[in-house]
């Protein structure tokens, strides 16, 4: 399995991950090598096997829909890159 440099760029965009143009070939090569390892899996028949998401097949525990946390907005916003009037600031999304 070989990934093209175009595919690598597409995946990087899906992940919103900046990668240097000069590194694209290396990522394409590394990812292709990793995908080669994956072909080992296809030799094993798993038609009757259920996918395993939790080591002990436990279900996600749910809790009552009640407020447990106190608001810590100020403390959380004190470490944010840019805030104003209790809001997180990002570049303009709508014109």
């Amino acid at each position, binding site marked *: 399995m070989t*990934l093209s440099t175009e*595919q*690598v760029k597409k*995946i*990087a*965009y*899906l*992940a*919103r*991950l*900046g*990668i*240097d143009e000069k*590194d694209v070939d290396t*990522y394409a090569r*590394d*990812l292709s*090598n*990793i995908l080669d*390892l*994956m072909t*080992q*899996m*296809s030799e*094993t028949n*798993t038609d009757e*096997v*259920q*996918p*395993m*998401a*939790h*080591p*002990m097949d*436990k279900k*996600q*525990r749910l*809790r009552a829909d009640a407020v447990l946390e106190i608001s*810590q907005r100020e*403390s*959380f916003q*004190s*470490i*944010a*890159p*840019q805030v104003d009037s209790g809001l*997180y600031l*990002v*570049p*303009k*999304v709508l014109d």
Partner: protein
Amino acid sequence: MHNKTITELSKALREREFSSVELTQSYLDRIKKHNALNSFITINEEMALEGAKVADTILANTNTNLLTGIPIAQKDIFCTQGVKTSCGSKMLDNFISPYNATVVENFNNAGAVMLGKLNMDEFAMGSSNETSFYGSVQNPWNTNCVPGGSSGGSASAVAARLTPAATGTDTGGSIRQPASFCGITGLKPTYGRVSRYGMIAFASSLDQAGPMTRSAEDAALLLQTMSGFDTKDSTSLDIPVPSYSASLNNNLEGLKIGLPKEFFSEGLNNDVAQTIESAINEYRKMGAEIKEVSLPHMKLSIPVYYIIAPAECSANLSRFDGVRFGYRCSEPKDLNDLYIRSRGEAFGDEVKRRILMGTYALSAGYYDAYYIKAQKVRRLISEDFKQAFAEVDVLMGPVSPSPTFGLGEKTADPIEMYLADIYTIAVNLAGLPAISIPAGFADEKPVGLQIISNYFTESHLLNIAHKFQQTTHWHQLSPKGFE
């Protein structure tokens, strides 16, 4: 005092041989003296001494926890309120956590003193501690060699006696492999035993925190403090915590040990193989029965792990977007540019490789072929262990095919590094507990024996490890220059 076990230190504190402030200061001095190891990212001098002072007043009273006044160090993956929590990444270089991880909170409640935060591979992705934004860490046994990873700073610091004990996390071997490389004891508990709340997530279905210490006896004390049900972690399991110290000396007569033949096949270094064989012989002398077993799907654990872990990492690391905390690029021209450049500028090479791999495996058209297929084979790997534990009590084998290697020696080819995780990652995929204990040396480099047991039988693992440490001296040896 830095060669004493935690039990000895605790006794000395109670008997006023020295105070927690004196003990803490002596470790802080050692950390500074050996800073070339680069095992710490943050040294917490002021807060540590303040904490020690408080501990000393508590120690003046009766009935204190055994860890009261004992210095420990946290892997920098655990959120520590008011203290930088970097996870080894430029992304969080400016992140002062607004809250404590449950593990940290548990140590605070026990009165332990935090010396600082330990170096690690970036976001715990790596097997040599060379992916850290803060530079690589030296192995005190040979300072030209890696300490292993991702909990490399923890292993290096404990081996060099810069802290009596440390925490680590293990997603694919990140406690056991550095413990093996640095000649210390490292325990990865059952998935769900220790709360993951406030432990920065890498692969949520695999991550588990555990103790890294100089002996099984000390590991029992730390695990006691770390374990327990936590409503703040939806994957924490509500299962009673036994007294880990109580069963340390149980007799091992009739213990059934399985040796998975896949652990002793091609690729295993000869000197490591011999060291492991003589360690197993020690158990034979104690009356254990040894038999060969098989984990036929184990070789598939590499491809399965390198699908599941990157897939979960790509989802978990999407939270680092430059909006609410962490690194933000300068002058983003729009929102997409803010995401792309913040992440591109702040994540290192290995983290990017895994995000790309995971994003690909989860993308439309490939999800079934990779992620679901990997989840299915994961079950087969887990079933292999179930069958093995129907025949034997525990499994033993090496932690890593070779001992520590030179800094920079394996950074060129990521796959080569991945393949060396072969003996550790199946345990994470199955969610089982396992321990690495010092078993001897290969080419003057420490070698760890891995012991794997059934779910929630950490006390048995610690018992088996402790008995070995009662008849061998490997765990007591100090690296030259760090005595």
